[in-house]
């Protein structure tokens, strides 16, 4: 496993946990473990909400890794992905920064209704809608060479549905 050591720093009322991972599918499970451990530091977040954050982390890291591997521009392929969890008062901000060359969330095409047989033509594309549903706020920021996904979570578990 080549995920780099986890950094944890306190900044006033905020604890920041950072994990630097290579763009490889097998490290997504490590990202989930780290997020689970970070969420456990705030007792306001129960096990169900922790599962929401682990799922969002999995989706965001998967997108970051796939974007970077798809880009295949030589030296950029191996640049690290940075996952950060900032724990505030009953509020967790999770960011995933990649070097995947940028991403346009408005270019996402909505899936057909689940009752439409054409829904089965779409195996991909659920990651961003899931993150949008699981988080309380979602923002995509341009960052050098790629995108930083900024997800903010309160302690209440998601109960809604996509669509």
């Amino acid at each position, binding site marked *: 496993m080549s995920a780099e050591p986890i950094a944890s720093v306190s900044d006033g009322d905020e604890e920041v946990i950072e994990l630097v991972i290579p763009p490889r*599918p*097998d490290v*997504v*499970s490590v990202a*989930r473990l780290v997020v689970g451990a970070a969420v456990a530091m705030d007792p306001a977040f129960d096990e*169900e909400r922790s*599962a929401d954050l*682990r*799922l969002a982390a*999995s*989706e965001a890291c*998967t997108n970051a*890794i*796939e974007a970077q591997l798809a880009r295949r521009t030589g030296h950029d392929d191996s640049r690290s992905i940075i996952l950060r969890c900032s724990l505030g008062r009953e509020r967790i901000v999770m960011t995933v920064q990649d070097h995947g060359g940028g991403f346009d969330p408005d270019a996402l095409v909505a899936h057909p209704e*689940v*009752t439409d047989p054409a*829904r*089965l*033509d*779409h*195996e*991909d594309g*659920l*990651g961003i*809608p*899931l993150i949008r*549903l*699981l988080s309380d706020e979602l923002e995509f920021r341009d960052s050098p060479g790629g995108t930083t996904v900024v997800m903010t979570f309160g302690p209440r578990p*998601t109960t*809604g*549905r*996509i*669509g």
Partner: protein
Amino acid sequence: MDFRLEVSERDAWSIVAVSGEIDVATSPRFRERLIELISTGNHRIVVDLRWVDFIDSTGLGVLIGALKRLRSHEGELRLVIDDPRVLKIFDITGLDQVFEIDSVLDTAAP
């Protein structure tokens, strides 16, 4: 990462018992095994997810692909899920309306 697949037969059904975590790292093996089963004529499949700790959209995509392939052969795909944490992702994506989901294997593969 903990991930295992075991295939068994039960009357007309092929039972695919999955354990561990289904994500971008393990989904390729899951997809390959299901495609192999379908392409060798197994068109009634139960995927038993009772020992799965985690599944994300990558795993859902594998199941959507398998369902599409099976329907093109007039086959069937049923899922067994008894963990509310696993069931939740099917619920919030609306895919609980797409898949036939049972909580016990005996109901899924009678």
